[in-house]
């Protein structure tokens, strides 16, 4: 049995860092805060690894199944009977896997930032926010309660907001953090309503109970959830779709992805941690967490997940080919890769061999975390050196940044799916799963994998080859050990992670899943990947006019891809023109003129009446007498003849 205190410690150490550095950082720890944060993170990471080891290897499986354990559960907020928000810890394969990933990547970023952020005025604040994020993310992955996950979900969102807006005096950063928060918030409403639906029918918020109740066809909860329908779709499906919308928002799935590229305004290590390796995969994690319900009870919802993932993967890949800001390229690439994970889940089924997609998805999540973090950190090193994000400012940097160059190359190979790097294995499994279940998705995935190789190497060649570099910046080094160590460690991970027999540990029904390697099947994707690489090399290794020509020949597509398919513009249209002008302004106007106007009019008309009737008080004593008599006559008539 894993030790609850230890796991709690994993989570709370970063929080302690946040509180300490957040309150006292600028007073007492201006320079030492990085060390403090990193040390706490290191302890956390070690504990996480220890826990993972304990769970996967020491703990005895029951009938070959890894049992989900809940070593801690505390009723946090009781609603009606049975429905309560519990703060708990769930330990099962995916949460343990995520614990490792999050702590490890976070540690890398902590270390890297020691160099990258050195000398920054708000250094302690930065580490405090990192601590907050790590805490929230860890809390998210170990949540035992669907509301608990929502809570940490929001916290993750806010720490992301804080970190994107870290350079708060840059207007673009401010805009980006706002956008990120609001878009994900919008998706979260879906999540929230989904939770409400699920919890209402299952009469619980606890994950285990919920899954148990909604997957067994006999339970009354399941029956009622399926029986109730809205617009011809069962309540259960609605609930799951809405939950998925939440996940899609956080994971930047089409069409809720628009915040992710802008989020690159944050410090690059932050992008590596949050917007590449951990937070953005929360959506995938969420779907995986509820996977049994999706797969068993609502296949429609699951196939929606698949299609959304596939489309996102393709669109992002196309856009990535045209972007010139290296972080944005990486951002779109992230989106594309998460699309992979999503559709892998989407094409999966529950249990046994059919659950390959699930395993593949988680595997890809794991490997992607390594190589994408690596890519970002590498890009960070480049930016650190060059002080620009634009590809046009770069070129020929391999001489100046040798370690970065090598590690970046490894990462690129990994993401392009070139064996034997990590990405190859996970992607292969995904394609296989897609092939077995859904051909349309398979083809999209295949095309995407070619595109991936192309744009990654476009990036690689653009940065490190292409035109000759001229002297840049004032640092003539790569940023010291602090920045190099994480690169190297991650490069090792990106190279070697593929050899982990992932299916043994993580599978849809938590049994051992043997994944086979089909040589014949791999030929197509690998060949496609290599083709992509060569085209990129042909176009970008040396400075030439081929890219421009190609762009010109594909004018329409290129232009729309360059403008990200105008999705941002559509959003702006909706928010500015429709919500602001057609709802907000009228509401404000209505309030000021109609509602308020009515109240004021009541007051004014009282005054007006008062002014009009002043004539009665004419000052003429005879008129008074006349009114007197007339009133008497009137009253007499009224009470004698009318109101008896």
């Amino acid at each position, binding site marked *: 049995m894993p030790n609850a205190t230890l796991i709690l410690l994993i989570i709370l150490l970063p929080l302690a860092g946040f509180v300490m550095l957040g309150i006292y950082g600028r007073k007492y720890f201006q320079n030492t805060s990085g060390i403090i944060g990193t040390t706490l993170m290191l302890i956390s990471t070690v504990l996480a690894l220890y826990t993972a080891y304990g769970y996967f290897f020491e703990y005895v499986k029951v009938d070959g199944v890894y049992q989900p354990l809940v070593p801690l559960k505390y009723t946090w907020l009781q*609603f009606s009977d049975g429905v309560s928000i519990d703060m708990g810890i769930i330990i099962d394969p995916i949460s343990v896997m995520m614990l490792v990933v999050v702590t490890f990547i976070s540690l890398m970023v902590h270390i890297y930032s020691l160099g990258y952020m050195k000398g920054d005025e708000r250094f302690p604040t930065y580490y405090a926010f990192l601590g907050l994020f790590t805490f929230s993310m860890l809390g998210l992955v170990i949540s035992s309660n669907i509301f608990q996950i929502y809570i940490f979900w929001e916290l993750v969102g806010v720490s992301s907001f804080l970190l994107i807006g870290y350079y708060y005096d840059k207007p673009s950063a401010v805009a980006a953090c706002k956008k990120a928060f609001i878009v994900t918030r919008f998706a979260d409403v879906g999540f929230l309503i989904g939770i409400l639906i699920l919890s209402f029918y299952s009469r619980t918020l606890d994950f285990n109970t919920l899954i148990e109740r909604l997957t067994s066809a006999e339970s009354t909860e399941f029956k009622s959830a399926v029986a109730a329908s809205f617009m011809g779709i069962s309540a259960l499906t609605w609930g799951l779709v809405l939950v998925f919308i939440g996940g899609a928002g956080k994971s930047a799935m089409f069409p809720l992805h628009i915040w992710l590229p802008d989020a690159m305004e944050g410090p690059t290590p932050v992008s590596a941690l949050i917007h590449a390796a951990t937070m953005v995969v929360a959506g995938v994690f969420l779907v995986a967490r509820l996977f049994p319900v999706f797969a068993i009870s609502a296949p429609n919802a699951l196939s929606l997940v698949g299609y959304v993932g596939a489309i996102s993967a393709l669109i992002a890949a196309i856009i990535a080919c045209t972007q010139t800001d290296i972080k944005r390229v990486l951002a779109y690439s992230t989106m594309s890769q998460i699309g992979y994970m999503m559709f892998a889940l989407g094409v999966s089924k529950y249990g046994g061999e059919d659950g390959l997609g699930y395993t593949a998805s988680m595997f890809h999540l794991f490997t992607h975390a390594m190589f994408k973090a690596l890519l970002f950190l590498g890009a960070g090193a480049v930016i650190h050196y060059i002080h620009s994000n634009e590809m046009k400012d770069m070129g020929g940097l391999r001489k100046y940044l040798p370690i970065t160059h090598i590690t970046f190359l490894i990462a690129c190979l990994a993401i392009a799916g070139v064996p034997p790097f990590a990405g190859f294995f996970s992607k292969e499994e995904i394609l296989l799963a897609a092939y077995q279940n859904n051909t349309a998705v398979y083809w999209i995935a295949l095309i995407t994998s070619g595109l991936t190789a192309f744009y990654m190497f476009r990036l690689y060649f653009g940065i490190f080859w292409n035109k000759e570099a001229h002297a840049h910046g004032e640092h003539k080094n790569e940023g010291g050990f602090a920045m190099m160590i994480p690169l190297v460690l991650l490069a090792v991970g990106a190279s070697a992670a593929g050899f982990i027999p992932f299916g043994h540990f993580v599978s849809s029904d938590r049994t051992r899943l043997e994944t086979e390697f089909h040589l014949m099947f791999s030929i197509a994707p690998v060949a496609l990947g290599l083709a992509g690489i060569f085209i990129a090399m042909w176009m970008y290794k040396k400075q030439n006019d081929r890219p421009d020509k190609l762009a010109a020949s594909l004018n329409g597509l290129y232009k729309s891809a360059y403008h990200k398919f105008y999705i941002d513009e559509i959003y702006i249209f909706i928010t500015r023109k429709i919500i602001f002008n057609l709802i907000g302004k009228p509401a404000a106007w209505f309030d000021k003129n109609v509602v308020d106007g009515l109240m004021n009019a009541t007051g004014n008309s009282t005054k007006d009446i008062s002014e009009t009737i002043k004539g009665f008080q004419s000052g003429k004593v005879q008129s008074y007498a006349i009114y007197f008599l007339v009133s008497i006559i009137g009253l007499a008539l009224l009470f004698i003849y009318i109101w008896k």
Partner: protein
Amino acid sequence: MNLSLLILLPLLTAIIILLMRNAAQVKWVALAGAALQFVLAFVLLFTFREQRADGNTAQMLFETTYNWFPSWGISFHLGVDGISVAMILLTAFVVIAGVLVSWNVTKMTKEFFFLLILLSLGAYGFFISLDLFILFFFLEIAVIPKYLLIGIWGSGKKEYSANKLALMLMGGSALVLVGMLGIYFSGAERSFDLMKLSQLNISYQTQMICFPLLFVGFGVFTALFPFHTWVPDGHSSAPTAGSMFLAGISMKLGGYGCLRVATYLMPEGAQEYATIIIVLSVIAILYGAFATMMQKDLKYINAYSSVSHCGFVLLGIGMLTKTSMTGAVMQMVSHGLMTALFFAVIGMIYERTHTRQVSEMGGLLKRMPFIISILFIVGLCSLGLPGLSGFVAEMTVFVGSWEHPDTFSRVATILACLSIVVTAVYILRAVTKTAMGPLTTGFENLSDATWNEKLAALILVAGIIAIGIAPFWLNDLIRPGAEIIMQKISIPK
């Protein structure tokens, strides 16, 4: 514990303030009074919990009755349940913070603090009274100090706002009065005693007439659409502490009244009118949120957002489930703390920048990290960030509302949920524009918070976080009370 202490203490403080000669003494007396209230509120909380833990299951604890106008069936009947205790705590928090942020008031200091303390007296009295008459008495006591606070120490079109506020609130209480008299004469026995009245069966006919009167009457206090128009003007014109009291305490009087008087005494009426309440509160929530989006003045932003947030209170009440009712009370507490803090922060910013226009500010984080951090916290609380009180309250309302199984309530709940996006939009717009971006020229020499401001802010933040992190204590406090209120109401399953 003797509940009349809660009335006597502010009364004593107020009298001592009147006797004081100079401003410094006045301030310290006020602070001491507020601190004692604070302590007293906690003593109440702990003794209450102790009693409950000892198995005292009486509906109301610490009941005391003094004879007062016995010929009318009026008695000075005091008592608290968990809901009242929660509201008293809220009041204590806001009062002490309000006194602290008013430390720099120089104009008629004595009168200012006198009125503040008088307001707190009204609020405490309202929350602990178990007799409709004295409840009404305290409700009205709290109106005039507000009027004077806005009219004398306010800014902008203060006289207009003060008038509007006083008249609308008095209008509300006039309706309350009529409804109250309706109940008084309807039963077999003429009584103003809440406990006694709750035992009597008020006829359906009476309920149909009196429930809307009472609900709308109290609703005016808590910004029921379309009677919310005093809120923006009143809040924005009031001095800082005035806004804090207004939004933090005064608006809660209405919510509490809707719950304790209207719904508790007239369950059938509540059921009949639930649909209308829900519609109005959803309108208030969304419409308030959208209207907030268009505001340019920080105080207006918070005032309109209060309309939206108080809509949740009414929604919770209108949904008539135990959980939603609990949520409504939580929202009252949470919104009280949060909005008081928000106004405090706005006041602090205004004192330094002399503007409240969002467009005229920028990058303040650089000059006043403390104040702006608080602004962030309160903004995040407002948009419902977990770990802060707003989240807990709103979620309880949502979950509670969802327990209502018909489609109408479902749609209403979903619409209400949508508001959290809009909230995020306007809060972030305001906060980011104020705090982030390049520093506006002319603001280079601004200073950060002083000790009193820090203390005030920290007290309220502590409250917000205490609820946000450990909502269970508040939930345990409120839920039994809400359950009793819901006893007579059956929702169709």
